[in-house]
């Protein structure tokens, strides 16, 4: 009986459910379900009704974590919420694992303050139809490979709380357009990573699930310290979407680079056009077989553009190596950069050629 009462109370505080006024979707009534299942701990509405001093809960789609509403399941529009204890009756191990995740810990901490509203159905949608036919796909909002729930619906569930901020540009991002779901990268049901509720054990492993070729590039001779554990892909990229196509965290490539390489920001008295325009003109940031992430060996790199009279346009050959008959500074060691050292820009009045 008490289970029935709290279930009904919970329904009354679930504005995002498909239709709070609809009749039960099957021959079973809510009380029938309540008799079949263990008592639920849901009942935030009741808690609120009994405590007028609790802070108001916004009806915003982006709710505080401890007041998440129950999302509608397009594949089970008639389903009703049944409460977490009902879920846990079968999903015992899920409960054990999830209880130790940041996500559910947050829910529970919130429940301690504002009422135990947020639980399984806050993410998985109302469970009555699923409870009646547990093996029928689609009757519960699922986030895994075999689930019938569309990625859009999955992401919508997550964004109902996690909208805005770092995820403000999820809509239209490359990851959204490719049909990725939040749970391709995150798993809030188990502590697979101590932080970030990731789907694998670290950020870089998550990204490498799809971007294997990029991970491989980091094994090259010059690279940023990602394989050494000092950096993550998300140091530069926001996988949740940004206003740039490569999901950069800043407005341009160069601004992202300047964040760590602030000395390159300048501005300098004398600028080098391709440098100021885009660092990627000369550097492959994910890894290179050349020194300092260059896209081509010096002097070939420079000779793509520089064919001025006299020294820049000669074809350098093995004859100019340190072992050749004509050792040539344009080729050996740092090559062009032995003299044009301030290639990222010079602040010296005598530096228009970046010699100084």
């Amino acid at each position, binding site marked *: 009986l008490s289970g029935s009462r709290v279930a009904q109370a919970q329904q009354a505080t679930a504005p995002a459910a498909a239709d709070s006024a609809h009749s039960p979707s099957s021959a079973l009534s809510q009380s029938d379900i309540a008799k079949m299942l263990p008592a639920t701990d849901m009942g935030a509405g009741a808690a609120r009704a009994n405590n007028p001093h609790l802070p108001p809960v916004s009806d915003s789609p*982006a709710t505080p974590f401890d007041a998440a509403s129950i999302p509608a399941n397009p594949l089970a529009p008639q389903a009703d919420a049944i409460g977490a204890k009902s879920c846990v009756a079968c999903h015992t*191990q899920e409960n054990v*694992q999830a*209880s*130790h995740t940041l996500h559910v810990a*947050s829910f*529970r*901490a*919130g429940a301690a303050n504002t009422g135990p509203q947020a639980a399984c159905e806050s993410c998985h949608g109302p469970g009555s139809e699923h409870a009646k036919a547990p093996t029928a796909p689609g009757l519960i909002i699922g986030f895994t*490979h*075999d689930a019938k729930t569309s990625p859009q619906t999955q992401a919508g569930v997550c964004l109902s709380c*996690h909208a805005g901020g770092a995820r403000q*540009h999820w*809509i239209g991002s490359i990851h959204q357009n*490719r049909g990725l779901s939040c749970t391709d990268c995150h798993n809030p049901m188990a502590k697979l*990573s*101590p932080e970030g509720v990731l*789907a694998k054990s670290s950020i870089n492993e998550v990204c490498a699930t799809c971007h*294997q*070729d990029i991970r*491989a590039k980091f094994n*090259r001779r010059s690279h940023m*310290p990602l394989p050494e554990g*000092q950096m993550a892909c998300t*140091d530069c990229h*926001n996988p*949740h979407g940004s206003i740039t196509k490569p999901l950069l*965290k800043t407005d341009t490539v160069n601004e992202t680079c300047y964040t760590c390489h602030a000395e390159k*920001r*300048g*501005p300098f*008295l*004398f*600028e080098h056009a391709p440098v100021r325009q*885009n660092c990627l*003109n000369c550097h492959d940031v994910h890894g290179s*077989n050349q020194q300092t992430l260059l896209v*081509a060996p010096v002097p070939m790199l420079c*000779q*793509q553009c520089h064919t001025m*009279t*006299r020294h820049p*346009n*000669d*074809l350098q*050959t*093995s004859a100019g190596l340190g072992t*050749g008959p004509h*050792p*040539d*500074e*344009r080729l*050996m*060691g740092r090559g062009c950069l032995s*003299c044009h050292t301030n290639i990222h820009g010079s602040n*010296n*009045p005598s*530096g*228009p050629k970046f010699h*100084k």
Partner: protein
Amino acid sequence: DTSGTMRVGDMQYGNGLDLRGWTPMLYPADPDGTSYLHAGMLRTPTGALYPYPPMADAGKPLGQGDWTYAGLLEFGYLHVGGDRNAEYFRQYDDWRSGAVLGLFALDFNNRKTGEYVDFRGSRVSGGDQFYRLRAGRYGSYRVEGFYRDMPHTVSTSAYPIWNGVGSTDLTLPASLVAGASTPAQVAAVSAATPRRSIGMVRTRAGLGYEGTLYRNWIGSASITNEKRTGTRLWGGSMFFNYPFPDNGGVLETVRPIDFRTTDVNLSLRNVGKVWRFLATYNGSFFRNHKDHLNFESPFALWNVTGTPQVADIKDGQFSLEPDNDYHNLRLDLSRELKWNGQFTVVGAWGTMRQNDALLAPTTCTGVGGIFIAPPVDYTFQCANWNTTAALSQKNANARIDTGLFDARVTFHPTASFGWHAGLRWYREDDKTRYLAYNPLTGQYGYISENGSQGSVVPGETGIFDPSNPLYRSYMVTVRNNPFGYTDTIFELGGDWQFGRKNSLGVVYTYDHNRPKYRERKRVDDQRIKFDWVSRDVVGATVRLSWEYAKRDGDKYNYDPYAQFFSESLPGFVEPVMGIAAHTVADMRKYDLSDRTESKARVIVTYPWGESATLSATFYGNRDQYDAVIGRQSSRTTGATVQWDWQPTPATTVNAYLGAETSRLGIANVGDADGPDNGAAFGTIGQTDPNLGGPLYPFANQWWEFDRESNRNAGLSFSHDFGRVRLDASYNYTGSFGHVGYTYDTVGGLAYRDPAAVAAASNGFPDNKYRTNTLDLGLNFAVNRSVGVRLFGRYQTGAFSDWHYAGFDNTLSYDHRIYTDKGGQLHYSTSLVGVMLNLKL
């Protein structure tokens, strides 16, 4: 939620001992997985397996309240053996034999209030460590403080001949005399110089707060400070050596790194039912405590006219990076629309500025230049140029402002169809203006290479003087070039859902770029991209994309730079033979040239049975540049295959293979600057910029390509036997590069004598970079709280790069002295360690 993925940096705390930074916290795996309802683990929507979670740890009670804690301490001893100084072994790892802190993790949680305190730290050495403390309350606020040191080794085989490495003044040892030492003397000093490493340490510390300020208003504030100290390899030019044996000076020096950067990040956001608002401020303040590098050159300079040398130029100088300030203010506003729509508009304004005091044009003293015979006097008084009174302005007063406007609208009126449109406008406006004018002499220009160039070749001082017949026809830079651009991008796209498992998308993008002071005033790039996603291709998820782009623009002006040279000033007198063509008219710089591009990528994820995943990536791109001279083509083709298997919670196996080839092709043309390749330079023919003309004859054309191939392979295995867990992995990386070339006639070669032509062959020696790494680890569980880990790594590597050919024998070549021998040709190293693991 936190805004971590909005800000650059500090998302990862790890090191070579533990790439994740928390690996000991992931074991042992829970044999029950995450569900009793099905065997094995579930998969991501794409189809990759989730790993088995670690055994849930509820923590231990802390006192009588609601707080619990869990902790882990792993510490031990590490021994480094073999070629411990191998450059690529310690590029970003500060491996040292000694005590190490693997991980110290301590978490406190209050299940009732959601409050928590987390600490995590690890220490490989004083230059390779991190510590981070976080505290807060879930859903309410979070504060964070961290400290970390990150090493970066640039070279472990450096032999700088100078004293004062790491300072702003490099002085020669007592056995060498600046400007008066012979190559043999320099070579002897170099050979006797002890090996040292070049590198730096990034020391970062930061504080941050993020939390709910009022109702739906969430704010964040953070400040980070980075100190970067050490050294890097650097250059030093005292004019060419290659055309002038026993003359000039080319030096590989070492510069100091002494940076401090302070970043301030503020944000305020409100996420409502209809509107979403985000305001961010990013400020960055870079300070370079060593803003110049002075160096002594050991080599003597001689003028090529054969007259007595009056100049004594023996020092060089670099300006190092100036301090700079950066501010960026950005507002993001989104509104939900009907038809599953969203409108987002972003506006940002930024500025980067520096106003460092400028250095004098030269540091020389006495007289520079060359005196031939009256009235042919190319000397200059250093006193007129070695003071900041010789400048038209004392400070740089440099500033670049940026502006951004980005708007996009997205609709999904039905479940099966959506469309979006976007418009982005970005401008970078360089407001820096500098005129190279010396009020002391009334001359324009500068002192090239600290006076060395003009002291070897008469007149090539860097000066333009309209009142002096000797200098009134010299083409020198007299103004800075304030490059900038305005980029406008329009995008229109649609996507269709076919059934539940297939979708198709198409996006058209028009990128209209208007560079300033470049060879083109307008560059247009039109691109169309198709993507197809299927979630059931024989059970696999397949993501395929293909794009085609075509770039063109207005007329290409091969030389738009006249206004920045002395030829634009009153009083410039064109030389008798005319001004040599700045460059060949057929050159097309690759960031501006017409281009056709196509790219394709396929990502396949195949759930293989209940416990394995097979995934693969196939990719390629082709770029064709419409350039007779310049970059002509580039292409890349690659594939990766990976197999992940986790048959039980106790066992994981992973294997991967990767291969990629790439090719970059360019063309260039040597100018006819010698008696044996046309001899047009210095004649009336030097004004002709056309390919096939006297200055750039067809005969001097040459072509070069860089072909690279990369191979990667790896196998890892771990198994938990109960009281013992074994993990093993082997990884291989192999990269090979070949630069080859062809030429029309030997006229295009830098050296055209028979010996040089014979030595030229058709390419450089192959470059290679190869590593083999074997890792083994054994974890013994003594009891529930104590464990011991034994681990070891054996790595071999091979490296060769023709830039360093011969450097193993000598770093001294006539008037050239190098510092870095490059990476070790072969190395083998080992790490052995033992760790005690205590569960607190």
